[in-house]
């Protein structure tokens, strides 16, 4: 009689493993599609020659939808449409920033290095978590407090406008977002996140923030800011 228990346990573990792989596969599929869509809306925004304020309003709009609307629809197919709306808006907001960098003498180089650098960081960290299967759930509190402190510093620097502080904030954002990639990916593979829509938006935000911060660091260090 007792011999049945290990069999049931093994079956349920296998089922859980299949479920986790499905979440991971769906997350990466949706993430790649939203990144392509963001690239398209960014190109559209550049072609339309949108003013710089587009970035501010797109980010505010995207964040409000991601925080207040997306969680209500995250368990339905409408959530996929909302993820595209958020990522499309954020991509559209990137257009004027990219236009500004593209107009610099080595702007094209800075954009391509930022894009490539973001891809390498994301894929490297994801591969690290998937290969080692380490549990990074202990990072949660540390990352959230760090992120709040960075936001407070960012508010101060809006008015202080100190380039060195701006550089420091961008560097810390990259470190924190790298930590969030480790944390979020480990949550998926350990069954802590079972909703691929919420997992996608979390990972998308980390990629978006790393790209923007890298753009700023390379822009300042390249002597073109």
């Amino acid at each position, binding site marked *: 009689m007792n011999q049945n228990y290990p069999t049931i346990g093994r079956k349920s573990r296998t089922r859980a493993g299949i479920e986790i792989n499905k979440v991971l596969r769906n997350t990466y599929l949706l993430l790649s599609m939203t990144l392509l869509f963001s690239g398209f809306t960014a190109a559209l925004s550049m072609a339309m020659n949108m003013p710089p*304020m587009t970035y*501010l309003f797109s*980010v*505010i709009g995207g*964040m409000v939808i991601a*925080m207040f609307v997306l969680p209500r629809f995250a368990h339905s197919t409408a959530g996929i449409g909302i993820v595209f709306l958020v990522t499309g808006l954020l991509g559209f907001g990137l257009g004027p920033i990219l236009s500004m960098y593209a107009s610099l003498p*080595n702007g094209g*180089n*800075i954009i391509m*290095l930022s894009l490539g*650098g973001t891809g*390498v*960081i994301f894929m*490297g*960290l994801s591969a*690290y978590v998937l290969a*080692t299967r*380490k*549990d*990074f*759930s*202990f*990072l*949660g*509190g*540390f990352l*959230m*407090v760090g*992120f*709040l402190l960075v*936001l*407070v510093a*960012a*508010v101060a620097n*809006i*008015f202080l406008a100190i380039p060195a502080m701006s550089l420091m904030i961008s*560097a810390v954002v*990259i*470190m924190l977002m*790298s*930590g969030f990639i*480790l944390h979020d990916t480990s949550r998926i593979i350990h069954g802590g996140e079972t909703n691929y829509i919420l997992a996608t938006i979390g990972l998308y935000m980390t990629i978006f923030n790393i790209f923007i911060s*890298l753009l700023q*660091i*390379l822009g300042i*260090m*390249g002597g073109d800011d």
Partner: protein
Amino acid sequence: MDWMKIVAAMALIMFIIYLFPRARHMMENSPKGSSSDWMGFVIPILIIVLFIAFLIQLV
């Protein structure tokens, strides 16, 4: 433009207010990491710092 600075600051402050309870919850409920757990975090972060320094050299 000053009004853009004010809008940006207000948006960030709203975001901080929204995130604060979540941060406190995560602080209270996150498991504690061992020194080897933290090393598993610090090493890839150091590699990223070196990688960014390399990217800066390429600009």
